[in-house]
């Protein structure tokens, strides 16, 4: 499951999508909109994606993960549109026979996603705004 959506995100559908009979662990990540960024008060965030390329790049990340760890399934969904503080912007779930692989792969997936997947966020603060894109997002 690799997707870009304008619908609210939750982890449960991803967890259910990645679970296999061989899985002993499912590791998850949920990125949420924080109230402050670089000392500025956030009003809301607006996400934009190059959808077709983003999904291709997500697929590339799943290939990288499979080259590094023994995992069962990987799901990544990123939200687009306007998000309020506390809403989830990105959800990831990785299943594996063992927890170490699941946890390592999940951490790798979000780092790579922020580095190279063409998704941008416009931070709209109380006193201005700025677009932030791949390679320059702050970590959640």
């Amino acid at each position: 499951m690799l997707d870009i959506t304008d619908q609210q995100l939750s982890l449960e559908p991803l967890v259910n999508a990645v679970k296999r009979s061989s899985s002993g662990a499912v590791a998850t990540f949920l990125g949420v909109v924080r109230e402050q960024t670089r000392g500025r008060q956030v009003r809301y965030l607006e996400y934009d994606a190059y959808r077709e390329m983003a999904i291709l790049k997500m697929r590339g990340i799943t290939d990288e993960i499979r080259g590094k760890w023994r995992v069962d399934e990987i799901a990544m969904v990123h939200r687009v549109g306007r998000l309020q503080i506390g809403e989830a912007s990105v959800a990831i779930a990785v299943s594996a026979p063992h927890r170490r692989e699941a946890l390592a792969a999940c951490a790798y997936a979000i780092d790579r996603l922020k580095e190279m997947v063409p998704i941008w966020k416009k931070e709209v603060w109380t006193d201005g705004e700025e677009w932030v894109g791949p390679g320059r997002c702050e970590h959640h």
Partner: protein
Amino acid sequence: MVEYMIKVRVRCFAAIREIVGVSELFVELPEGSTLMQLIHLLHGQFPQLQALTGSVLFSVNREYASPDTRLAGGDEVAFIPPVSGGADA
């Protein structure tokens, strides 16, 4: 001598879309043009794009591409800005 033209599709996202004002453009270029030539042409049309240059990556047909990439008719090009100037950036 006849100069043949090719037409490429330019997808615009985030700050680029706000500068250009639309989410995609179709641009005609002489056959054999490189990505860099397309970039120069767009810079001429939209001078505000020049402010973004230092940090922008480019894609051709949904893969990151270098400016010396030769374009073909029907190619899909996008600017991938890591950070760009907003209202008061």
